[in-house]
């Protein structure tokens, strides 16, 4: 810096640019914190898996309006109050999770991603979450005449807001610190009377923990909510809702596969040797994050069933499922299991989670992927009663 000219121009320090004029070899860039992506090119790929995930996600495309949820209104009205509480609280939680996921991967990860196929995967991933958000409105509009009461409660209800803290904490810190890093670079900065220390290594740690937190959100929190949605449908209630949740679950399985790939590539260290050190240093904290999340989900189960259980699902069974699924998700990202539960206490959930594509007869009316623009697929002989030929 010129001592005679103490004014720093922002452009001297801004490291983010939407289109870097520097030539770079994207095959040599790490996934994150390298040179920002300039040309969105897919002719050469460092990690072809991300393009395969994009293609799969695009092949999954669906719209909430395709699913008929009109029968759910009658089902919902007939539910006892404690089951209405379970259904609505679960839906509020799902709405919160997808509100976060529809924007946060973009806001947090796009400014630091360095390879085009991963950048496009992040955008594709977040876009599909916005479809999920729209589908909750589709469901909520249908079951109640006052959707605003449900949406407003997502912000004002303490139980939901505790969930929001847990899922946004790492995202928010990463977003804020990357913003400072992009403006001022590494070092000690005085901002609004506060001292902020920014080091690239610490940012990498924060990125790693954020990815863990996202994986926990997608691989554990979502699945606990899916189990509740499917428990209604097992009793042939709220089946339109379950059809939508099946489509959401299919997307989420792909998303968590994406975050598992990112985490495993980071741990491996070939992509960025520093990330392997980060992963080793953060191992205990990552384990704690999974255990804490499992505890939070168990507390949530207690809140869901506070006024009574439902057939097929209660607090204890849901808590066992939390432990079972947490174990599996920890193994998938190279962490040791922490709970004794080794078998699935609600194996019927699996059949709700099967991808539609493996069905042999896609013309079956029950198949959600085949139901496009339908209102009512059930036609009885009596419907033709007043036909004159």
């Amino acid at each position: 810096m010129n001592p005679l000219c103490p004014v720093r121009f922002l452009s001297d320090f801004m490291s983010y640019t939407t289109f870097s004029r520097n030539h770079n070899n994207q095959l040599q860039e790490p996934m994150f914190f390298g040179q920002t992506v300039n040309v969105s090119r897919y002719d050469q790929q460092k990690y072809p898996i991300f393009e395969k995930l994009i293609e799969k996600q695009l092949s999954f495309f669906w719209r909430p309006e395709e699913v008929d949820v009109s029968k759910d209104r009658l089902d919902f009205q007939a539910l006892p109050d404690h089951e209405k509480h379970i259904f609505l609280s679960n839906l509020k939680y799902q709405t919160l999770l997808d509100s976060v996921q529809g924007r946060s991967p973009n806001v947090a990860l796009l400014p630091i991603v360095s390879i085009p196929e991963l950048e496009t995967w992040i955008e594709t991933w977040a876009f599909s979450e916005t479809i999920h958000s729209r589908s909750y409105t589709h469901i909520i509009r249908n079951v109640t005449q006052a959707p605003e009461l449900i949406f407003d409660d997502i912000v004002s209800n303490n139980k939901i807001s505790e969930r929001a803290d847990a899922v946004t904490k790492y995202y928010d810190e990463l977003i804020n610190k990357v913003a400072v890093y992009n403006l001022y670079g590494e070092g000690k900065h005085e901002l609004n009377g506060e001292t902020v220390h920014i080091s690239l290594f610490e940012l990498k740690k924060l990125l790693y923990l954020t990815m863990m937190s996202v994986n926990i959100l997608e691989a554990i929190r979502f699945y606990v909510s899916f189990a509740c949605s499917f428990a209604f449908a097992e009793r042939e209630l709220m089946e339109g809702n379950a059809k939508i949740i099946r489509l959401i679950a299919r997307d989420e399985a792909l998303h968590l596969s994406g975050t598992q790939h990112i985490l495993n590539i980071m741990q491996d260290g070939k992509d960025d040797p520093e990330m392997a050190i980060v992963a080793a240093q953060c191992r205990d904290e990552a384990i704690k994050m999974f255990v804490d999340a499992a505890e939070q989900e168990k507390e949530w189960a207690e809140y869901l069933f506070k006024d009574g259980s439902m057939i097929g699902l209660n607090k204890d069974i849901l808590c066992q499922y939390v432990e079972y699924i947490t174990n599996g998700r920890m193994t998938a990202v190279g962490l040791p299991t922490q709970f004794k539960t080794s078998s699935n206490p609600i194996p019927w959930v699996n059949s709700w989670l099967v991808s539609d594509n493996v069905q042999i007869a896609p013309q079956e009316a029950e198949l959600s992927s085949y139901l496009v623009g339908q209102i009512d697929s059930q036609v009885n002989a009596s419907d033709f009663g007043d036909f004159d030929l």
Partner: protein
Amino acid sequence: MTSKKTAKIHFADNSQCVDFNTGCHSLLDCLEQQQYEIPFQCREGYCGACRATLVAGQVTYNEEPLAFVRDGEVLLCCCKPDGNITLNLK
């Protein structure tokens, strides 16, 4: 039609042995037919729920899985044994 030799599936933690029926789509289908309870979800290789350890032998994938698979792991829903194999389902 060539008669294909049936592959045997052994398990690392017990002495059981299952014949792989060549008509099965995957190891997962075969083990389910034999009443084994295996975790599954997507059944097409992208979710990773059916991940197991391949202790010995080789498998051939019907299609390349999208889920992360470490060395020594297999996704049961989208592969078939290539000769006799030993699995650890834990």
